[in-house]
């Protein structure tokens, strides 16, 4: 908590002021998180101060909230380009990303519990930067991030706003951002180190070295290409559903069958069904082979029945057959 308070102070998040008349404050609270490594061990414990954004009023405390994130197709395209040209993939993580966004609106917040300034307990915090939990935080952060990147000289793509690029005589630099996770690739290694130190100077960044784990996708790179898989995600899913010991099957869907809305009994736990369909949907990021069955089981989210559950179990058993399966992006230049 002290570390978080220091980060908040260093970034000049707020100033203590008297609450102007006819203005309302929003509350805040502490949230504690456990960060986990891909192998399941505990990486670190974190605490966050979050604002109670649900108490904000539209047009008073916030206006636009939309913030772009990279399309998964452009992330895959990015990986494919890196594979084809055998470019290195660097990963950066921005510490306390949302605390860097500049707030345009005037937002007043109560002082954080346990850290009320002595003798000034009647004052409130006027936020200057965005804070976790505020409605406009993602937008404020993305605006600031994109400004800084363009200051460096990179251009923002018009087709996907979270892809940035630079082309010079020395080579290419490409960058894709997913909120606070950043992946950089390119042939201009000097430019990439310059970009990294530029980001370090503007935000506090953590250099995670070569890309290995991004959005739950495991990335393995070698000279011949790049391999993307979601092995840990599948194993976690199988553990959750108790399907680790299930008999693997060779197809994700029984051939020549049609699911209907009426067959079978209503399924006892529709919430679980919906949650699992959501997880399977995310799995299609590296598994085009289950795209079709997942799209079919997701048509029955509203009122799942036992027959639909059986179809879902079939997909899980198919995944059990080869959890390490994934997409392989070949370096075609290398093989020729």
């Amino acid at each position, binding site marked *: 908590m002290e570390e978080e308070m220091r980060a908040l102070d260093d970034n000049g998040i707020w100033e203590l002021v008297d609450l102007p008349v006819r203005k309302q404050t929003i509350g805040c609270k502490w949230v504690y998180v456990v960060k986990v490594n891909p192998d399941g061990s505990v990486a670190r414990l974190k605490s966050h101060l979050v604002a109670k954004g649900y108490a904000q009023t539209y047009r008073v405390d916030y206006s636009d909230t939309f913030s772009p994130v990279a399309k998964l197709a452009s992330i895959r395209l990015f990986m494919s380009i890196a594979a084809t040209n055998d470019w290195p993939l660097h990963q950066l993580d921005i510490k306390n990303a949302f605390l860097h966004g500049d707030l345009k609106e005037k937002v007043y917040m109560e002082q954080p519990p346990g850290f009320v300034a002595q003798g000034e307990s009647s004052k409130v915090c006027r936020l200057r930067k965005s804070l976790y939990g505020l409605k406009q935080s993602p937008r404020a952060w993305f605006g600031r991030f994109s400004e800084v990147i363009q200051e460096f000289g990179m251009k923002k793509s018009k087709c996907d706003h979270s892809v940035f690029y630079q082309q010079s005589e020395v*080579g290419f630099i490409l960058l894709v951002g997913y909120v606070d996770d950043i992946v950089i690739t390119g042939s201009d290694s000097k430019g990439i180190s310059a970009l990294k130190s530029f980001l370090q100077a503007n935000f506090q960044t953590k250099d995670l070295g070569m890309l290995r784990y991004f959005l739950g996708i495991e990335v393995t790179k070698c000279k011949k290409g790049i391999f993307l898989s979601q092995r840990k995600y599948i194993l976690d899913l199988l553990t959750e559903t108790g399907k680790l010991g299930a008999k693997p099957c060779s197809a994700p869907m029984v051939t020549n069958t049609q699911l209907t809305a009426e067959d079978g009994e209503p399924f006892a736990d529709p919430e679980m069904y919906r949650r699992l369909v959501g997880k399977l949907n995310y799995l299609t990021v590296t598994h085009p082979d289950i795209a079709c069955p997942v799209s079919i089981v997701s048509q029955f989210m509203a009122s799942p029945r036992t027959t639909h559950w059986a179809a879902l179990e079939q997909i899980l058993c198919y995944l059990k057959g080869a959890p390490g399966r994934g997409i392989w992006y070949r370096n075609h230049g290398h093989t020729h």
Partner: protein
Amino acid sequence: MVYGIEIMVILIKCFSDADWVGSKIDRRSTTCYCVFVGGNLVSWKSKKQNVVSRSSAESQYRVMAQSMCELIWIQQLLNEIGLGSSLPMKLWCDNQAALHIASNLVFHERTKHIEIDCHFICEKIQQNVISTSHVKTTEQLGDIFTKALSGPRIEYICNKLGMINIYAPA
């Protein structure tokens, strides 16, 4: 522009397929396509269409228009970052009727209502942005996105899509 580094020419290919009246509940068709960029599978989709099509060519036509949008988006992104190529993109489909409508703009009663899609695709073909060709049903990789297949067929297509299991005992 000549740079000191060699840049691979990136070819964009797409397989598109439709499962005509695939859904027994409301008889809507399924849109399916997969896009390869430089031989690597980058984008795919399997989605039930939101209108009913009266013929298989019609549903295939909607798929072609949709996959065309995705292809154009990918090409624009590549052009922007400076890795695009001027070569026309390849679009494969296994429906002869749809291909015929695409290559010569013949309108009759059964295609009147998909006029927008028709003009869109014809325009792109004439601009040489894309070229369409026929693919045999056995070579149609879009198969995996349209229907339930048997184990060996899945193996075959996964292999073609570039899906491997690096943890598998060799």
